[in-house]
């Protein structure tokens, strides 16, 4: 999962800046894809994209801020580095509030840009890894039977086996069997870990 190919997506209307940035990043060994406008990028966008976006904040047509909002609406995880001109700092601050990872002012030093790109890619990797883990948890939860799911919810709520047995009107032994199946299917031995796992995917699945 961490082996996934990361690409630097450059969205820049100025041909020379786009071309030079592409050459620069490629010479640094990055995979690069460039787009002359936000619309072009949006047309190409898919959830599978991994890497980061280097986005010019001011462009004719759809500008960088607008693209950011549209990507947010599509739950994009791609970190965005805004490239701003002189005097665009207030704009950049707004972009940061919307979740941009960083911004850099033109003309920039290569080291500074590459550093920001590296850290954006790292963040992307992290996010992607976390996302992978959470997706695994969801997958595991989905293997539980309805009865096992019910028992797990009560376990997480902190109910003792005895209480669960009385409330569900089953034997305490049956509860214990379900419980061990849940722990097995979820791949853990500790209740505390189970609670952490389930809470971490609360937003992805209707649990608890």
């Amino acid at each position, binding site marked *: 999962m961490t082996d996934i190919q990361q690409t630097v997506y450059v969205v820049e209307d*100025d041909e*020379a*800046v786009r*071309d*030079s*940035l592409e*050459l*620069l990043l490629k*010479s*640094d060994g990055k995979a690069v894809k460039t787009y002359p406008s936000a619309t072009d990028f949006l047309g190409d966008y898919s959830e599978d994209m991994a890497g980061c976006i280097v986005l010019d904040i*001011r*462009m*004719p*047509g759809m500008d960088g801020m607008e693209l950011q909002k549209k990507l947010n609406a599509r739950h994009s995880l791609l970190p965005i580095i805004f490239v701003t*001109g*002189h*005097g665009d700092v207030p704009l950049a601050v707004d972009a940061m509030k919307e979740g941009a990872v960083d911004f850099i002012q*033109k*003309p*920039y*030093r*290569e080291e500074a840009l590459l550093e920001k790109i590296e850290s954006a890619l790292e963040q992307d990797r992290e996010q992607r890894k976390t996302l992978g883990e959470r997706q695994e948890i969801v997958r595991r939860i989905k293997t539980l039977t309805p009865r096992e799911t019910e028992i797990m919810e009560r376990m997480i709520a902190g109910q003792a086996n005895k209480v669960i047995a009385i409330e569900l009107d089953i034997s305490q032994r049956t509860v214990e069997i379900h419980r061990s199946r849940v722990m097995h299917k979820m791949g853990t031995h500790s209740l505390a870990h189970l609670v952490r796992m389930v809470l971490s995917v609360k937003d992805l699945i209707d649990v608890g």
Partner: protein
Amino acid sequence: MTDQASTEPTVLLVDDNAQNLKVLYETLKDRGYHLLIANDGEKALTLANRHNPEVILLDIMMPDLDGYQVCERLKADPATADSAVVFLSALDDVDAKLRGFSLGGADYISKPFQAQEVIARVGTHARVIRLERALQERNRELESDQTRILNAISEGIYGLDAQGDIAFANPAAAMISGCTVEELIGTNFFELHFRQPRPCSGALWQDDEAGTSESSPGLPVQATCSQGISEHQRNVTMYRADGSGFPAEYRATPKKEGDRLTGAVVVFRDITAELESEQALDDARDLVQEQRDQLAHASRMATMGEMAAGFAHEVNQPLTAITNYARVALRMLRAEEPDPELLSQTLEKIEAQSHRASEVVRRIRGFVRKPAMGKEVLSVTGLLNETRQFAEVDARNNDGGVEVRVADDVPDVLADPIQVQQVALNLIRNALESSRGAGSHEPVEVSASMVSDTMVRIEVRDHGEGLPDDAEQKLFLPFFTTKEEGMGIGLALCRSLIQAQGGEIGFECPAGPGAVFFFTLPVAPATANQGAE
């Protein structure tokens, strides 16, 4: 005079013989005359002087003063000179008659006279003298009218003869020349006013020109005196009697008798004060021009200030690209096997971007240059495209951008490039702002076309907010603005700048949304060659 005209003619009878006087008196009484009688020469002169008779019947043979002497003295005195003297004498010889006529006598009656002859001759002479006096009276009235006019005119007037000697001068001429009319008469015009030696008496100008001329050719009024050519010149230096000079304007008209040129009439005046006020006017005009140029310059600087962020961007783009390319080039050099082809491509890209940056700087420098360069022959397409590039610094925030369309038949114009660009930029920026305000995605359309053989019309159309209803009256007034941050100087200045090019500026409300602003510029003369470019 009218008094006397309405009364009877006066006839003075002069004879030393009382009998003769009586007969004459009887002959002429009751015939409509006022009769006076004198029996010697002295009395006759006294009465003539006092009553100014039309006719004097004068006996020749008298003691003391005889008739000849009386006649002589009558004619010598202007007051009595015009009376008709009719000699009466028994001397009936030709010599006596001729002597009488030679002394100014009008007629001769021989004694013994016939009553009817006396009546007829006196009647005739009384009528003639009456008419003559009336005629002279009219002449005097006319002359005094003319004199009053000539005296009242503030221009100096000279009547010159063919040599330029002053035959007539009015009081204004004397005042301007700084001497009296009497001093002027007989003085040579060229000598006095142009310090040129008087041409030799009697020598014709033509002779002078043919031979060794003492007076320089082309001297004012000379052509009028010598060839009968009318002249008019302004700002000619003339000299006063005291030798000081003054700037003058004059008109010289030939004076002719029949076909013969007899001299010139010169009307002239001192234009010192006029030149001073003209100078003051010119100075004021220059000052206005200078202030307009300064305002225009200040306005251009302000525009550049407003566009500073845009320009920074315009320069930063190529600088960013240059930095990137330079890094790439360095990496290539450090590679184990540098690719010279790729490297030189990258260096060429760096060069192109440097030109791009310096082009932006050149454009800014050109725009803020001071003072304005003056009028030039300009290609409308070139001018508008350059301006569009400028405006696009702002247009980055507009979806529609700027479109330039110049009709094929539009010739070059004659105008100040910076000032016209300033106006065009101002209109385009307004249009972009208005489009932005209205959220329009339509481009700002800039077009040029011919409106007449001599004028090109440049139009800026937007699809933006349009104009307020009261824009008509106020739009071009200073300090009127529809913008919150505006000063209201832009359009007023634009109008002044376009008027300085000989064009007009205005606006129209199109059928759809938005506004149309236009200005006109004069076609450059003889653009056949440049226009093809």
